[in-house]
């Protein structure tokens, strides 16, 4: 799992009920389109996300219909688990045994 994937997952887990479209996710995650959309496609293929085209009249709304992504019923649990595993791994890296530690104070 890469950092961009983690960012996308976190964006969806902030509000699991929310439906999001691509441009909105770009603003939320600060990812480029060339990074974000392949991730969305991969998550959708794996069944973690489902997508649906917006049912609007483009002429009336003055814009084309968007495709909205949302968490699938089976997607929330593995996403939370993946996020927890990442957090656990990051905690180990940030521990003082591996990290840099505080610089020692030099006596004046």
């Amino acid at each position: 799992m890469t950092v961009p994937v983690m960012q996308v997952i976190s964006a969806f887990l902030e509000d699991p009920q929310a439906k999001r479209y691509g441009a909105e996710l770009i603003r939320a995650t600060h990812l480029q389109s060339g990074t974000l959309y392949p991730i969305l496609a991969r998550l959708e293929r794996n069944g973690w996300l489902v997508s649906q085209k917006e049912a609007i009249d483009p002429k009336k709304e003055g814009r084309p219909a968007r495709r909205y992504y949302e968490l699938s019923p089976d997607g929330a649990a593995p996403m939370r688990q993946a996020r927890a595993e990442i957090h656990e791994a990051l905690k180990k890296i940030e521990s003082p045994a591996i990290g840099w530690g505080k610089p020692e104070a030099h006596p004046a």
Partner: protein
Amino acid sequence: MTIGSALITATIAIISAVLAGLVQKEVEGAIKILPFGMLNVARLIVPASQRRDLYDEWAADLYDVLDGDDRPFVRVWYGIRFSLGFIWSGRKIARELQPLRSPGTAADGAPTTSPSEPPTIALPRVNVNVSLIQELIARARKSQESEEFVVGDMRFTFPIRKRGLGYSREEVTSALYRLRVVVRLNRYWLLSVADFEPSLFSLEEGGFLEHDVNMAFSVLRYAFQPRITKYDAPSTQPRPRTVERSAAATRRPSPRPGKRVSPRVPPYLGIDGNLDIDRTAPPTGGVSQRIPRQAARPVDPLTAPLQRPMGSLRAARPVDPLTAPLWRPDD
């Protein structure tokens, strides 16, 4: 200042303001063209069966991106960056989504294909000496590999890109000899079925098969041994079968130091890729019938004399296929 000059100044100011507004709107509309143009390029990159679906999604989001900032140049920059991402990753996205979003909505009138099949342009009953060959010559000019066939008074030159040409015999009877030629040109496949009348070649069936198989394998050889092969196919004269290749074709290229001989040569091929036939074995009839072979003679296909015309086939002209003008079906 007189009243007249004040009026003129006011009129000029109003006209200037109106013109500036029009120019601003025009420029704002025009600069949106660039991101959408780039998105169209990205659309062409993905398979035709997914174009409409993906483009609709991307275009809707691009509208949103272009409305996201008040500064026009920043907006355009965001739009360009957004569209550029799909040029790089459009194919990857399409590949990921291929099993999910059914290709029932083919765009641009493109034929709907199953995921495993490449898009096919079918050219039914195209004679092998017309569009397929000349199209190949026209499109594969950059190829340094070619195969020349001299069949009677016809000369064919196949510029072959790596793994670009598939060739198979479909049916051989006493009355019909049918070839199926599949050519991959970029993302498209050209499928052609060509029928020949076997009597044109004055070959018995066994000779036909061997010649056919040799031609097919010579095409396969290009997958791992780029070189030029020249064929002198059997003539129309009633004589024993002669399949002759120039010395350059039969000579095995010396391997470069440290380079292994390709292990991908199928076991039923000889060391140079030719069909390995035990010619000393007694004939068992049919395909394996022994055919007397004449000694090979060097033939230069570009200077060889023309023989009699072959029915409806167009007579070959002694031209250099690499510099000849593009042939068109309506020529």
